[in-house]
């Protein structure tokens, strides 16, 4: 005969234990009887850890120490547990030391069922952090309870356990939501801190094969930041022979002249001035569309924009709808703007001609 167990460790008392024995309660997936406390020493500790971890890796339950079972696994006799308080402490400490992750809510309680007859109840809650691993003496192990017995988990079970338990899934869902909240759609990111520096860094450090760079910025300085600079961007342009089209205003300030000097020294840069220019657009096209990216916003290509000013920009990536937006940005900045009235060629791209 089996009884249902709507127990909590707080609700278990002498009557419940007596009732188990009276009704010859059967061991189940969630209920195990132990006639005696786990012996001291490695073997005893190992057995304890396996029993607790196995139950935690199943559905949780109770281990009742001090209740003997018969051959069929039915509760039959009481057996006193010596020094029950110490036993409880030892059980908890052993599990805390050697089961990873720790089983949240693991409790052990001693109950005086009859005068001078104590038992220990170990409560193992149903865990959201399984599979729990036993680690002891430099060895690791995964055990699971199946009905009344336990055995080592298979590789597939362990893998399933890691990929399917609620906590992990919930974490993944939370991460996904957080990413969406933080950055919006996959192809558009609102950059509220150092947008220009982020674009420049992406260009300098991207391993993608870039086919074209367009810089539309009314003011251009040497743009020196902790990680990036116009000089480093020019180095990449020269090294990889990336045609670069720059449209800016005619410089009057020293910092702007320095930026122009840098660009003038770069063979693969075409430079145009347009005094009506106010827009700030940066587009880096790549051989693979998905590697292309662009930025438009408030920031010029200057050190001040990267370090001092409050700027904002929208980073567009070459994915999904971003591809179309990038095409439009590229077409406007690299094709149309260069032939706008007032866009005067200052320096063209000069490379070795065929002779």
């Amino acid at each position: 005969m089996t009884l249902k167990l709507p127990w909590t460790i707080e609700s278990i008392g002498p009557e419940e234990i007596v009732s188990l024995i009276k009704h010859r309660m059967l061991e189940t997936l969630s209920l195990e009887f132990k006639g005696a406390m786990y012996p001291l020493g490695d073997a005893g500790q190992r057995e304890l850890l396996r029993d607790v971890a196995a139950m935690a890796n199943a559905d949780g339950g109770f281990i009742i120490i001090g209740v003997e079972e018969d051959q069929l696994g039915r509760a039959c006799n009481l057996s006193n547990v010596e020094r029950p308080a110490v036993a409880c402490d030892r059980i908890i400490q052993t599990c805390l030391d050697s089961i990873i992750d720790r089983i949240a809510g693991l409790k052990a309680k001693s109950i005086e069922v009859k005068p001078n007859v104590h038992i220990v109840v170990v409560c193992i809650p149903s865990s959201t952090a399984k599979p729990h691993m036993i680690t002891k003496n430099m060895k690791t192990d995964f055990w699971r309870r199946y009905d009344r017995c336990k055995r080592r988990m298979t590789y597939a079970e362990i893998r399933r356990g890691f990929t399917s338990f609620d906590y992990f899934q919930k974490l993944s869902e939370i991460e996904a939501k957080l990413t969406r909240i933080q950055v919006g759609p996959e192809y558009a990111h609102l950059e509220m801190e150092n947008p220009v520096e982020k674009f420049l860094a992406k260009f300098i450090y991207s391993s993608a094969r870039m086919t074209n760079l367009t810089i539309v910025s009314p003011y251009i300085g040497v743009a020196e930041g902790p990680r990036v600079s116009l000089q480093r961007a020019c180095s990449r342009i020269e090294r990889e022979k990336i045609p670069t089209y720059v449209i800016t205003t005619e410089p009057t300030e020293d910092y702007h002249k320095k930026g122009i000097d840098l660009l003038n020294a770069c063979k693969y840069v075409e430079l145009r001035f347009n005094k009506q220019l106010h827009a700030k657009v940066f587009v880096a096209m790549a051989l693979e569309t998905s590697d292309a990216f662009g930025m438009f916003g408030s920031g010029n290509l200057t050190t001040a924009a990267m370090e001092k000013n409050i700027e904002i920009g929208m980073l567009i990536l070459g994915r999904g709808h971003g591809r179309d937006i990038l095409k439009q940005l590229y077409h406007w900045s690299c094709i149309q703007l260069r032939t706008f009235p007032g866009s005067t060629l200052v320096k063209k791209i000069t490379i070795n001609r065929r002779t």
Partner: protein
Amino acid sequence: MEFKEWFCLKDRDSFTIDPKINPTDAQFYFGRTDVEKRITAQLRKSFIAPGTPKIMVWGPYGSGKTQTLYYVHWYLDNNKPHSCKLIPRVLHVDIEVASNSTCGDIHIQLVEAVGRDAVLQWVQALFKQVSDINKELLDITSDKNIANALAELRAGGDSSMNAWRWLQGDSGLKPRELEALHVTRRLGQIGAGDMVNVLISIGELAERNGEKLIFMIDEMEELMNVRSGDSAESIHQYMRKVAEPANSSAGFIIGFKADTLNDAPAILIRDDVRSRIGEINYLEIPHLPAVQDVKTFVQEMLRHLVDQGAADKKIQTEDLGITLDTYPFSAEAFELLCDYASQDPVKSLPRNLINCINECAIQAWDQQSQIVDENIVNDVAPLVFG
């Protein structure tokens, strides 16, 4: 004078061809007579058997796959083959694929491309034509769940919204909501087949309303991003079922980048998908193989982009010393350009040619020159073709 007037451009401000920038550019398909013939022939046949196009176009970056998809769309709108008895409803879908995308992600994007309004309109129209809409919907799809969801679109309010969510494969519907829709499970719960059945059913619904649903799906090389084996397998199952002969109502033309077919995403070229689609429906859009192909491309492009009348007048009045068939390039510059373009077959691509022509024109404009001469080509072409 503006750039477009300078070079007598017709209805455009540059020599760029891009149907996403300028929708009328979809009509252009230069220098690809062979490819054009093959693709239009396959289209004609596809409407007979299997009943809807199932075509893959592939080639290197810049070879004109996107232009091919848009051209086919234009062709279906303007030169529809006789074998297509219905009005093509062509939908361009930029599929987003992430490393853990599954068939559900593909499915929702395809269904969203059709749009709830369109499907509802079809259901409403059918309702007006028949005496028993439920029976009719069951006739369209033997799947009772799909029939019930389609019927529920007419309900309005939350019920209609939930029906649409179900058809999209939204896994967030609660049991109560499923019950209200009279469906027995979430879509996709038992696999990709359910979702494909929805797509096919929507296609059938379109056909009952006189339309032929065809998806143009570009940049499917992004399927290479799918890293998870389970995700890739679910997408493969979806593709396989969509490619089945049983699907004669939801057509597709898929473009993907590949230098050889072996480079293609495995999902698209697995034996079971290939055998269902048919080898003949894997169409390569190659580099322009020979200098004559390059010349044909450039000449056709210039002829279509330039207002021939205005250009001819300019050549005469300004005594430019060039002929109309290469305008605004001088004959020598034209030959030089084609020579540059064909020296490396890998770079002999429409995208590079268009880019080069545009840059040459911009440089001529900068120099206030009416024509593009050899000097300009020598300045620009090495940058593009190496």
